[in-house]
């Protein structure tokens, strides 16, 4: 650190003259693609962190001009108002099919979907599985918060056993509504996918891991290796009826029991 401590009154006086570029060295800033606007997301929602990571990764990979996002129906429906790249809106659940069409026409673009559990694992499960099974060379960002946030907190296929939602006011009962649906493990039955991983954004460590995975997922696509899906356990404090901190702890302590974190498949590394 050449000019460390300067200006905090604690450092030694130094006579070294600093160049202008040293003075202005930027250590941390808003990624260019993350627009300086208020989002509609609730306090403590994981979408904010994920939008930032998405913008950072696309910028670091130098593909902001090539990136095309497919926005879902759900809380992230307005992602195009926050991340300044090209987007298109898909009907509920159809994002992987839309991404397929885009990528097949423009194989040089970096095409990804950004979907929640209602969109990806419920109404759009058919598209999810078939795009993965065809090994479409796309990147799927799957925000799993175990609830339908936008429609105000109904049971999702990923809702935990016993979790109270608007459609399971006494808690999810597997007898009538089944079990938390594990998308990564389900897709792991297929031959084609190359990267399947589950991560979260509730601690700085997790955020860094998520960023690395996201980057890898985009690299898979850019190197024409194939289909990747990054599942992110994301807090929904509002419809978990928790404070943001409680929601963060809930993910670490409880949600990960049903949805273990880790890389489920990484063919790229194995190769």
């Amino acid at each position, binding site marked *: 650190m050449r000019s460390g401590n300067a200006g905090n009154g604690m450092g030694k006086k130094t006579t070294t003259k600093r160049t202008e570029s040293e003075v202005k060295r930027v250590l941390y800033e808003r990624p260019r693609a993350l627009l300086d606007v208020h989002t509609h997301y609730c306090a403590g929602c994981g979408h904010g962190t994920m939008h930032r990571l998405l913008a950072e990764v696309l910028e670091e990979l130098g593909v902001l001009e090539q990136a095309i996002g497919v926005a879902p*129906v759900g809380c992230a*429906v307005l992602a195009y108002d926050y991340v300044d790249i090209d987007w298109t*809106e898909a*009907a*509920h*659940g159809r994002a992987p099919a839309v991404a397929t069409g885009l990528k097949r026409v423009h194989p040089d673009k970096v095409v990804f979907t950004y979907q929640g559990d*209602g969109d990806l694992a*419920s*109404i759009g*499960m058919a598209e999810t599985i078939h795009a993965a099974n065809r090994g479409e060379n796309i990147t799927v960002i799957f925000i799993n918060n175990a609830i*339908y946030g*936008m*429609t*105000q907190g*109904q*049971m999702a*296929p990923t809702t935990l056993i016993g979790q109270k939602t*608007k*459609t*399971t*006011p*006494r808690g999810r009962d597997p007898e*009538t*509504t089944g079990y938390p649906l594990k998308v990564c493990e389900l897709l792991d039955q297929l031959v084609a996918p190359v990267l399947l991983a589950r991560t979260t954004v509730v601690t700085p460590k997790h955020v860094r891991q998520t960023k690395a995975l996201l980057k890898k997922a985009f690299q898979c696509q850019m190197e024409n290796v194939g289909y990747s899906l990054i599942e992110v356990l994301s807090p929904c404090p509002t419809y978990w009826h928790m404070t943001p901190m409680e929601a963060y702890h809930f993910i670490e302590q409880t949600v990960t029991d049903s949805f273990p974190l880790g890389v489920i498949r990484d063919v790229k590394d194995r190769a």
Partner: protein
Amino acid sequence: MAERMALTGNDSAAYAFKQINPDVVAAYPITPQTELMHKFAAYVADGEVKTEFVPVESEHSAMSAVIAASLAGARACTATSANGLALMWEMLYIAASCRCPIVMPVINRALSAPINIHCDHSDTMGARDTGWIQLYSENCQEAYDNALQAVRIAEHPDVMLPVMVCLDGFILSHTLEGLEANDDETVRNFIGEYERSDNLLDVERPQTFGAFALQNYYFEFKKQQADAMQEAPAVIDEVGKEYGELTGRSYGRLDPYRCDDADVIVVGLGSSMGTAKQAVDDLRDEAGLKCGVLKIRCFRPFPGDLIRQALQNAAIVGVMDRAVSFGLGGPLFHEIRSARYGGDGPMLNFIYGLGGRDLSLDLAKDVFRNLAEAKDSGQVEPVVRYVGLRE
């Protein structure tokens, strides 16, 4: 004892569901229908109904599940909006063709794209040829009353067809209004038990529904379906009358308002007809304009002959459509014009309120003024006019 309560349109429909106590409800959330199912899920969880409630993974599955439940002899209901209804499309035809008396509130919302969550009638107007009966509601009370009557209409042995109870998204679904609710016993007696004579679970008389029928029999099925629709008007009228005797609120297929001496009549459906009625009162007082409103409650089966009769003395008629049939104009307008084929004076078509654009009282009055002007000047071009458009 009837009870007066304050409920939103969604809550009113959910309350009707609670009193209907369906055997099976399968649903998927979509704005603005969602609260209806929240409310109903709470009734299920609290044991206030005995319904088998299935939160399925899409609207297509919701409709599939209730069709099967209905064929198996259950009283089955669901609810949806806009894109949810669109995703049910394939199954809507099957529900009607298999003669499933399903009752489904549709909380009207604009179809994508651009994606929009607010009210218009593009969803249910698009579904007008699916074989469902369609009742439109002006307010929350009507939504509740229509939902209860829908059960009787749908399940009538001469009809056996599904019914959509349409109510405007947000304008009604999310607006608190006073509701006269019937007591549970009155409703129970009114709707009675549902018994399907040809149900799937009858092991004595095994049945197959929706099976292959090609050039040999498909045509006959469709004719029977058309015939069932022909039976519906008499049943709708009879049920509306009986409901009136029971509750003091009787219903016809049309609801004319101050039409008797009116020169200028506006025809339409849904919540904006309340605004139009207010416009009529104001314009009669302020400008001495002899005007009236003809509200269509039952859009399918289409009451063409009644409409023609109700409009026969009008000097000019304006039809308000909250949907566009692209390349044609408003669907309601065109059906009414064809019902009035062969004369009966000029008609204008007003397209309004797409994607939730508000129809203010002033705009509603403008429609009447516009008509009055056209009547006096004889200038009826263009026929299709847009109300409140930012252009």
